[in-house]
């Protein structure tokens, strides 16, 4: 089955299949029961799901269908699974390397 990728504005939730929830709960750092990402316009993207930090990424564990909400965007129903939080990237925001 294809992996799900959800985009709501600048926020992306990418389903990952290389990690399971038991492993994440054991080795990841539990952050909250809710993921909340503030936007620049004062509103935030919200979803009720266990949020973990593992390595340099944030993951959410969606155990039953949950809704990703934002004041300005339509809601998205997120199917059960483990998702990595990502954002829209920008070439001009890339890490600049020092001059040679």
């Amino acid at each position, binding site marked *: 089955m294809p992996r799900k990728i959800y985009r709501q504005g600048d926020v992306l939730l990418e389903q990952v299949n290389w990690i399971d929830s038991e492993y994440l709960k054991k080795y990841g750092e539990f952050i909250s029961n809710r993921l909340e990402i503030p936007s620049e316009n004062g509103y935030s993207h919200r979803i009720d799901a266990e949020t973990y930090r593992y390595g340099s990424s944030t993951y959410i564990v969606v155990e039953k269908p949950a809704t990703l909400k934002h004041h300005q965007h339509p809601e998205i129903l997120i199917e059960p699974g483990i998702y990595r939080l990502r954002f*829209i990237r920008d070439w*001009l925001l890339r890490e600049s390397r020092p001059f040679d």
Partner: protein
Amino acid sequence: MDLEPKHVKYIHIGFGKPYIRSYHIALCPKPTSIYIRRSLCKGYSVEASSISHVFDKVFRGVVYSTPVNIYRYSYRIYHVYIYSDSLWRFIDILIDFSYKLNRYCRSYRCIDHIVSNVLNRCSDLDICIDVVSEWLSYIEGVVRRRIDSGRKALYKRFAKKTTMFIDKLYSVFPDIRNIAVFKVDSIFYSSCVEESINILRKFYRDDQSHRYAENICRGYIAYLFARDSIFAIAPNNLELEYGGNYVMRFKDQYIFIDGYRDTEIYTVFKLINTNTASDMVNRIYWVSILGYDKYTNQIFIHYVPPTLALHSVETCREWLMGLVDSYGFKTIDGYSLVEV
């Protein structure tokens, strides 16, 4: 090249192999391998895959048979010759010829035809230099014409698409016809960064302003930004002009439209900033996606790598989402994307 032939007596040519070992050309005071082994000779290396076929054929045909020493070192076979101005110049010109012949010819048949013509006319080294030079200037002329026609074709494409989509751009972004331009005076990197941050801070978070400023100041280029309205940050001497078959230009930096997509969620335009002169695109400075989000009623601009200059708007959008790499190849297989 800063080499001093007067102190040098021997030319060491280390023959490499394509994709395995580069060629090494060096000037040494002795014909033995010791100077090469200890890196005491002045020289340079050349990628074997770019030159070996032509270089070997011509060199073998002209001077290969008379080395004063042959030795093997570092996966190369070195041939040593007594220095002469003619030989040194011949090697130099032959390397250039080998490189450019690969760009000129599209088949081995063409390469072999020119190489055999050169060899047939090479009775001695000096004549051979003239023959190779003659071919070289012919090849350079043809390659230059081909490059120019490619640049013209690129200009035509951008100008055509801009003409095609400019009315749509004006209808979605009416204020693009009269944008604010913030000028950066400083030509020095650190003060340019400082100046740009001061401008960007009014619109973006500190860390974001900092990143933008660092990349902006790496070139002498105008950039567009979109918050409540569209604005530009440009070096001080670049005046903004509108007109013709481009969206706007800052001196020789022409901003074109190269794509458009409209869905129920968003409208996006692919913008390209190029160095353009005499109806030819000489360089691509940046590629961006300028868009309007219909749900949030917000405008945005995101930059994508310049390597995506010829890719579709959709591929550029996929890059923003991390679904393709900088060359437009998929990085994630089998996914279904749900967007709002």
